[in-house]
């Protein structure tokens, strides 16, 4: 069974890494958006979303990522997803998020792509 949503953040140089675990529902999406906003206000514009520990998402949760992308676009920022489960990757793809964000198979590869 999918666990409750939780979010861990880590900063590596000028990159913000947000790692989700559990079900990315409405609350989860809101947490992502507000933690992002906090760092964005401090000037972070390069973000890795590590979703390794999430197997289930819903479209409400994910719609908050569109907000993240919008804000990053405004100042030439970049978002890279890492460790997507196949059904989450398909969800993001149907929503067209990969027109505005990249994906990599690991956090290390995402960091390398941002370097």
């Amino acid at each position, binding site marked *: 069974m999918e666990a409750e949503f939780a979010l861990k953040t880590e900063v590596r140089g000028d990159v913000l890494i947000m790692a989700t675990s559990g079900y990315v529902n409405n609350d989860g999406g809101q947490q992502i958006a507000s933690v992002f906003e906090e760092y964005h206000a401090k000037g972070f514009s390069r973000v890795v979303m590590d979703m390794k520990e999430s*197997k*289930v998402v819903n*479209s409400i949760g994910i*719609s908050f990522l569109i*907000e993240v992308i919008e804000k990053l676009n405004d100042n030439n920022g970049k978002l890279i997803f890492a460790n997507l489960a196949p059904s989450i990757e398909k969800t993001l793809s*149907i929503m067209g998020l990969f027109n505005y964000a990249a994906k990599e198979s690991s956090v290390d590869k995402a960091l390398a792509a941002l370097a």
Partner: protein
Amino acid sequence: MEPNIKLKMTLPRIPDIELVAIEGLDRMARHMGIPEEKIGEAHVLVTEAVINAFEHSGQSRPVVRIEFTMNQEKLIIFVRDYGKGFDPGAVEQPDIDKKLSSGHKRGWGLKLMETMSDDLLIESDDKGTRITIIKNLK
């Protein structure tokens, strides 16, 4: 051949209750040896259908019925609410380019259900909405 197996639930409106339906689906799918990839896609179908049924149905004390019928080839998901109904034809198709500059980022559930399913039937009137989703498992 293994016959159909069937699981029915009537869900109360409490946070994340859709995960209980997903747990039932997972046990059925594992028992039938369904590939992980298909199960993951079925999760999306269940989640979106159940959330819509609770959120938009406008019932004062909402319940949602869900039924899974599964065999080796096919999964049929049936979701029913007793809400106010809607006209699926009048729902605007979401578009990421427009969503980016809009205040309304949501509106993806029906599109995800349509794209991930093999067949989707919506019957809706002022007594509520029934959604029948067919997902091929091979």
